[in-house]
């Protein structure tokens, strides 16, 4: 029963979300009044996440997956669209409402070496969260800190340590404890294990799985490592140049990928089959730049199946199975 599908209630609904960054503009351009070139990192994303599911979000670097995660936490401000969390539009909230919303929506960051304030001990980091949000009464704070540490598998003797005296895995556990201090119901995990050693990665993955079952968490798990996403997710969304090009149940997407991009991604995963490779690379061409998005289907320059229509018309989302959808003119 370890990876159930969620109970069906939608907790997070993203509706035609766009996030733009202004690229830097030189002094000359500024004087001439030229508009800064805009980089659309997230370009019309729709996504629904149900309670208790783990939504995996994969894609190459620069595809917008990190930006999407940050937009949900409102670290970056979307230029269009809506993000409904438990029915409330996160983008329309005032400061006070956002504050209370942040207790239920938390984030775990990629780099365990920069995600903790180097000038604060483990205890100070956790206690600050508890005190600021008044999660417990003042005399209970030390006990609650110990509880949080044991929740993420750390001994209370680590409470007095500084981040620099912790290993990468320990720091990532502290980062997780900090997020859990607010007792959130939804976690955005942005490449939470990418910077860790293989054996430590596996420890953290197991921990995440335990916590999810124990605390009933819903997760958006962002990663570039497809085998990790396959392991943890109940559903998977594949992002390419700011759009979700395929989404479906994990097994569907990995066993029968419908979008040519997903197909080549899956083909690119190195196999743990001890046999010298004879196969061709899964995908030719380079990771594209979001500053220069191709016409029509944005994947067509790298697509082996591209037809004339792909160069002209952007495909719309096609329903394939009960849960699987792909944005392609010729799926399957």
């Amino acid at each position, binding site marked *: 029963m*370890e*990876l159930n599908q969620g109970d069906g209630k939608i907790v997070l609904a993203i509706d035609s979300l766009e996030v733009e960054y202004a690229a830097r503009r030189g002094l000359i351009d500024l004087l001439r009044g030229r508009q800064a070139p805009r980089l659309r990192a997230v370009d019309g994303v729709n996504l629904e996440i149900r309670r208790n599911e783990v939504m995996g979000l994969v894609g*190459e*670097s620069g595809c917008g997956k990190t930006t999407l995660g940050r937009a949900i936490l409102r670290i970056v401000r979307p230029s269009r669209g809506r993000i409904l969390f438990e029915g409330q539009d996160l983008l329309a909230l005032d400061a006070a409402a956002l504050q209370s919303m942040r207790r239920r929506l938390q984030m775990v960051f990629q780099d365990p070496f920069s995600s903790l304030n180097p000038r604060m001990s483990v205890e100070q980091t956790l206690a600050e969260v508890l005190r600021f949000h008044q999660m417990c009464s003042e005399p209970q704070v030390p006990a609650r800190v110990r509880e949080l540490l044991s929740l993420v598998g750390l001994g209370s003797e680590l409470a007095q340590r500084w981040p620099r005296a912790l*290993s990468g*895995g*320990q720091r990532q556990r502290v980062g997780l404890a900090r997020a859990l201090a607010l007792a959130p119901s939804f976690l955005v995990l942005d490449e939470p294990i990418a910077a860790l*050693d*293989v*054996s*430590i*990665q*596996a*420890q953290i*993955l*197991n921990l995440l*799985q335990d916590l999810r079952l124990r605390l009933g968490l819903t997760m958006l798990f962002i990663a*570039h*490592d*497809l*085998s*990790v996403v*396959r*392991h*943890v997710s109940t559903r998977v969304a594949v992002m390419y140049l700011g759009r979700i090009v395929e989404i479906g149940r994990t097994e569907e997407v990995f066993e029968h990928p419908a979008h040519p991009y997903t197909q*080549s*991604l899956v*083909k*690119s*995963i*190195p*196999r*743990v*089959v*001890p*046999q*010298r*490779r004879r*196969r*061709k*690379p*899964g*995908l*030719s061409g*380079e*990771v594209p730049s979001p500053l220069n998005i191709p016409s029509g289907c944005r994947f067509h320059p790298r697509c082996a199946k591209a037809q004339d229509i792909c160069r002209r018309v952007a495909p719309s989302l096609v329903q394939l199975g009960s849960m699987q959808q792909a944005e392609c003119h010729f799926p399957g």
Partner: protein
Amino acid sequence: MAEGPPARKPAAPLLAVDGLVTEFRLPSGTIRANNGVSLSLEAGRTLGIVGESGSGKSVLCRALLKLIPSPPGFISAGEVRFDGRDLLRLDEEEMRRIRGRQIAMIFQNPMSGFNPVWPVGNQIVEGLHDLSASAARARGIELMRLAGIPSPEQRFHEYPHQWSGGMLQRAMIAMAMAGEPRLLLADEPTTALDVTIQDQILALLVELQERTGMALLLVSHDMAVVAETCDEVAVMYAGRIVELAPTRELFEQPLHPYTVGLLGSLPHRRTSDGRLRPVRGQPPELLQLGPGCPFAERCPVASDDCRSTPVALRTLKPGHASACLHPERIGTAI
């Protein structure tokens, strides 16, 4: 089991490392980053070296080329025989002739491997002193084509910042191939790249190796990368090789509990309850290693003798060596 490993030639190996010790003498104590490493590699074959950070795999690569910053680093014991000569006895001038032409190396971060104010093409052909400018350019374009860089004539004069990470890694490979090396050291060549690009680069390395017959030493933390590119795999832990075996055998019948733990950490291999079977605990502090097996603290089958008895790599089956004191316990306990 259709195809076994190709028959070994009886000839002397191209590279034979024996008892290599690389130390870093720091104020806080001496760290042995390589502690008695022995391995051999024949022409045309690929040896994978896997291990976690701090296992000494990158230091090994640099030690083979004598590129250890000294001080604090010193190669204090051992032998590195390349084509019959002990590299550790060569002076810096002779070593310079080996680097690039006999043994080349590519690094994890291609961005920092290039000088940002020089065109990429010029950097690729920099080592070709004996060619005229136009011949060097022609050779450079040929090398870039070999490395799968599209339209090399135009890209020859571009600068590193105009290139993506994957393209720069190709350029780094082209640069390494310029000297027609007989041994290529690849230190985490795909770690900084996307899966799709990693896939391309690995395919390129395999193809180049088959075409030129060079030997390849591929360092990686990723068991999966090693699985499909290497003939043999050495697993490193705390500065030592703890297991060395033909790839298939290592994956199917590992004889060291650390290897078992690494394989259990792979999300590719799903267990019945959906949980991974990682190694518990943290990698050891190299400054505080005891006399016995460095893995004993994390080992599920260790007994008291493991902590006190010095261990060494010993051959348990033809071509398969392990540094475990009790390899017979592995099948039963894990």
